[in-house]
């Protein structure tokens, strides 16, 4: 039932969930994740198919080249997000959400109309660093583990506390000496980098890349991961991403009914657990049992 291909997809879902979660922990509803995911995917696709020096013509694509793509993508997404964030983070609440949706759409339409970026057809024949889907699952899980660890550290230190304070009351946070603009920007940049790195893995895993992979639907799906899993701590979006990615596949035996069940889960989850699966009372219960 759960094979390496599905596992890889689940890990990708968890990573995208974390990307949506990071700004949300600062109280910023940004839906830009698929935009940066698409930048990562497109960049990886272009580099690995058009730059021979990276080893695209070899039978097995070197992992070092994948890591190089990730480094470049991380840098590009980081720089872009600092510039874009400095502007769009002046907006609050639903206005920020709308501006970031616009960003995703601009990137999608640009990619669609630029032959050099793949155009409407997309980019095919992206070389494979792993012969087996298990390789992708392991590689992705490794990245997920590193990013979870980073999020855990972040949540326990000064910046993480500042981010939670901004979410609760931005004005009071500023009066504690917190540079709220800067903290929000850091969260936005981290979110973009995580999304970009996930795009690189996805491009190789999918073997092809096109503009439709980073669209408005993806914004809503990734947001659902966080709403369903909870946005109090990093475990929420990870769990949400894993479960909601796996569910449609696991329900396949029940045929068309699966879409109805999936819809019901998304609908009923937030109704029963408004703060997500990993919610404050669960966290309280878990931490109290630990001495």
């Amino acid at each position, binding site marked *: 039932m759960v094979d390496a291909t599905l596992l890889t997809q689940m890990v990708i879902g968890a990573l995208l969930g974390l990307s949506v979660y990071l700004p949300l922990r600062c109280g910023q509803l940004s839906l830009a994740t698929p935009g940066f995911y698409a930048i990562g995917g497109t960049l990886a696709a272009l580099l690995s198919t058009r730059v021979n020096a990276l080893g695209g013509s070899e039978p097995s694509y070197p992992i070092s080249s994948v890591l190089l793509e990730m480094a470049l993508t991380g840098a590009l997404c980081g720089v872009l997000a600092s510039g874009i964030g400095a502007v769009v983070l002046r907006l609050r609440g639903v206005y920020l959400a709308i501006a970031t949706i616009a960003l995703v759409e601009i990137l999608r339409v640009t990619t669609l109309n630029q032959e050099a970026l793949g155009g409407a057809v997309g980019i095919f024949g992206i070389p494979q660093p792993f012969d087996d889907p298990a390789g992708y699952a392991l590689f992705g899980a490794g990245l997920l583990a590193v990013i979870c660890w980073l999020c855990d550290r972040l949540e326990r230190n000064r910046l993480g506390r500042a981010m*939670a304070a901004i979410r609760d009351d931005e004005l009071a*946070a*500023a009066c*504690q*000496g917190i540079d709220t603009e800067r903290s929000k920007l850091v969260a936005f940049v981290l979110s973009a980098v995580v999304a970009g790195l996930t795009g690189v893995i996805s491009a190789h895993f999918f073997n092809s890349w096109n503009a439709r992979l980073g669209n408005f639907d993806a914004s809503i799906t990734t947001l659902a991961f966080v709403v369903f899993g909870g946005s109090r701590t990093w475990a929420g979006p990870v769990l949400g991403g894993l479960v909601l990615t796996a569910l449609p596949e696991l329900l396949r035996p029940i045929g068309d009914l699966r879409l109805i069940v999936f819809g019901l889960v998304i609908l009923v989850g937030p109704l029963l657990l408004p703060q997500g699966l990993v919610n404050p009372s669960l966290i309280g219960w878990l931490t109290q049992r630990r001495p």
Partner: protein
Amino acid sequence: MSTPLLETRNLGVRFGGLQALEGIDLQVHRGEIFGLLGPNGAGKTTLFNLISGITPASSGEVLWRGGSIGGLDANRIARLGLARTFQNLRLFSSLNCRDNVLVGMHRQARLPWAAALLGTPLAQRRQRELKDRAQELLALLAIGHLAEQNAAGLSYGDRRRLEIARALANSPELLLLDEPAAGMNPGEKDQLRDLIRRLRDRFDLTILIIEHHVPLMLGLCDRLAVLNFGRRIALGSADEVRQDPAVIEAYLGGSR
């Protein structure tokens, strides 16, 4: 006389057609407990908002140790050593009491980012020190036993005390208290007066306080200013203010 710690010169703010404050001149000296009195809507909280950088002034300026701090963001002003509480309580409701105080220590909690990320022994030691200090502050405000409790679940009086603890966490030189006694019973108000004096002595503070409870203010403050309709109508010691005709008229109504 030495430079005042905080000074406002001809400070004013206009919201559309409403002149909320006009021509406010105040000098607050180091070590002083300075009171702001005035009826509802006189502009006391607005004055706090101007001083702490939340609302930009329309005219005049605010001076900190003789230098202008007009136009600085709230976070920059807080980092100068100026902390405040809020009349309508603005705690971080999803955090527990200790974390609320730790957020107040943002200014002191700075560490090299790599050390903070990796949780080096240095970072762990610093973190422990900060937690210990947070616990001390909570204990000082008599809410030490609530450290693990969520701020949202506290009683009204405890929330007021937590706001003061959070403000003290910043190690401020100047503490702005906006109606700290609101919602407290008479016994708690008496304790509060002693507490504020003790805090001033212990932390070498200068305190600017807004409060409606006139007897508390007259007994506590070294000097007071009285505001009415956005203007300063009186300034002086408790006795001077008590006998000021303009103050009596503002509070009791005048005969025309």
